[in-house]
């Protein structure tokens, strides 16, 4: 039980209730100009992105008017018969992107771990620069490199997969018996598998750079704590670096996924366009949204152009969604960071 001591002179009137007072700040003119200047520049980014979204979204209206909701269910894209649909396109887009991730995720993670934890310090800088440089190579060069160098060799990887795992539907190739006396190489060429492989090369530096940045921030105090317990380097990485970098690993992978979803050049050059819905990535032919747009944009007119742009809008929405989730994961602080003393 506490007793409050009344310090006011005896007989004075009770004090009125207190209320929070408003706090106002006056900005000087330079402050004012600077604040609204930066706000304006920042807003431009939003306006541009929003403008693209609205422009593309607006194309949905005539498209749905023409083709109805069937637009999302139809797998063919046949401008001659005016049968347009994006179901195969959406499936193909996700298929190629996921194949790219299957290659990109382990390679990016191991590359980032090597550079940040194992590489000697004199090599670390050059390797980081090299990874950044990898991101700067134009995608047409990757596409050409993939077309001439990867394709002829990757099809043997595909054949091997088919030979031993062909009983799994995912690794099956129609008319492509790997043990046939005459190997039908053409059934294995220009497949989503090979396209995804080349796309993975383009997204590795992106994922790797994000992971590198996060691994580098793993606290020295925790690293030393692990070493002081007699930890091996791998033990330290497992208990300190990987848990700390989890957000970066997930976020970097999602950013890579976002980029892979929209990759155009490599897919356009390598993947042989085919709008059948088939879940056989080792097999010749497939289609992605970006490839579809690049392929048909030239001769499309009127309603068909709108339909192409509507397909683009769907891609835009998926990419924005993936990137937003990635950003949220990267920015989310880890539980321990809150207790920093």
């Amino acid at each position: 039980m506490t007793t409050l001591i009344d310090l006011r002179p005896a007989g004075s009137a009770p004090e009125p209730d207190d209320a929070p007072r408003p706090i106002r700040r006056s900005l000087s003119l330079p402050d004012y100009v600077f604040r609204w200047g930066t706000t304006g520049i920042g807003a431009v980014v939003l306006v541009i992105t929003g403008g693209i979204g609205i422009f593309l979204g607006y194309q949905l209206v005539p498209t749905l008017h023409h083709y109805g909701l069937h637009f999302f269910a139809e797998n063919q894209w046949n401008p001659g018969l005016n049968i347009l649909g994006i179901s195969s396109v959406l499936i193909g887009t996700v298929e190629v992107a996921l194949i790219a991730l299957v290659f990109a995720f382990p390679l990016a993670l191991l590359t980032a771990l090597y550079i940040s934890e194992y590489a000697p310090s004199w090599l670390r800088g050059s390797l980081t620069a090299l990874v950044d440089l990898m991101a700067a190579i134009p995608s047409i060069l990757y596409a050409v490199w993939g077309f001439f160098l990867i394709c002829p060799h990757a099809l043997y990887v595909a054949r091997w997969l088919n030979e031993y795992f062909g009983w799994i539907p995912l690794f099956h190739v129609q008319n492509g018996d790997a043990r046939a006396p005459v190997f039908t190489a053409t059934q294995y060429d220009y497949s989503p598998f090979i396209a995804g492989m080349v796309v993975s090369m383009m997204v590795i530096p992106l994922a790797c750079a994000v992971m590198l940045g996060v691994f580098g921030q793993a606290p020295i105090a925790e690293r030393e704590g692990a070493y002081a317990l007699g930890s091996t380097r791998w033990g330290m990485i497992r208990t300190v670096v990987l848990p700390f970098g989890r957000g970066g690993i997930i976020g970097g992978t999602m950013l890579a996924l976002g980029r892979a979803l929209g990759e155009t050049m490599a897919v356009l050059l390598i993947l042989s366009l085919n709008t059948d819905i088939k879940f056989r990535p080792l097999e010749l032919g497939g289609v992605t949204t970006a490839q579809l747009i690049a392929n048909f944009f030239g001769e499309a007119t009127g309603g068909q152009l709108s339909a192409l742009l509507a397909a683009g809008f769907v891609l835009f929405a998926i990419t924005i969604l993936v990137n937003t989730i990635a950003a949220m994961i990267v920015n989310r602080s880890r539980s321990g960071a809150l207790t920093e003393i």
Partner: protein
Amino acid sequence: MNTFAAPAIDAAPTQAYSANPSGAHLNADRISAWFGTNKVLERVSLSMPPGTVTALIGPSGCGKSTFLRILNRMHELVPSAKLAGEVRLNGVDIYAADNPITVTRKRIGMVFQKPNPFPAMSIGENVIAGLKLNGSRASRTERARLIEDCLTRAGLWNEVKGRLGDAGGSLSGGQQQRLCIARSLAVSPDVLLMDEPCSALDPTSTRRIEETIAILRNQVTIVIVTHNMQQAARVSQQCAFFLAEQGTPGQIVEAGATKDIFEQPRDPRTADYVHGRFG
């Protein structure tokens, strides 16, 4: 029968790195240290016998933390760091090529200035993190007993026994530091190095840690760096005064029984420092 009691061994260790429950003899012989070309320690020798708390005192920048980090090979984690001399654990040089660094660090544990529990792990997991890091396996009951034993020895068991599954970071600073002590004890070290373990803590937590040190003294050899003269006087039996005079590398000015260092120091600089006239 207490299963945690180590088997009795002869007074003279016959085998290098024998797991002596009352700690090991740590001997630093003519240690010099450099960061790049800057020499920070000049031929420092110090004997740290078992059953004794050795306090390293001295003003900031005199090399005592560097000396401590040399004692369990943490020094070499700094890229430009170099050293000369020998550190002998029960007579065996820990820097010898055939001594695995992981074994050395397990034998010579370290508690840092800032508590550094692993934030992704629970309180219980933090205690036995050393087992996981060393790749040693233990059954569920062994782990549970080890957690209780180490937390009890670190003076933290009663405060956390009901919430071992909570995150290590949910504890207060003083509790986190005792958790780090428990974590170090779990790999049964012979020596425990403490680098200003109380400098980030409030007086109550400091007292708890000092009580913990007093209890652990007969179990492991303890070496503690401290800026707090009273703390050095309270917890240690022997004391080494480090000093780096203008532009020269750090050296031990005087080392001996704590009582002597504080009551009748031989060197006037020691007297000035322990009586708070500089530093």
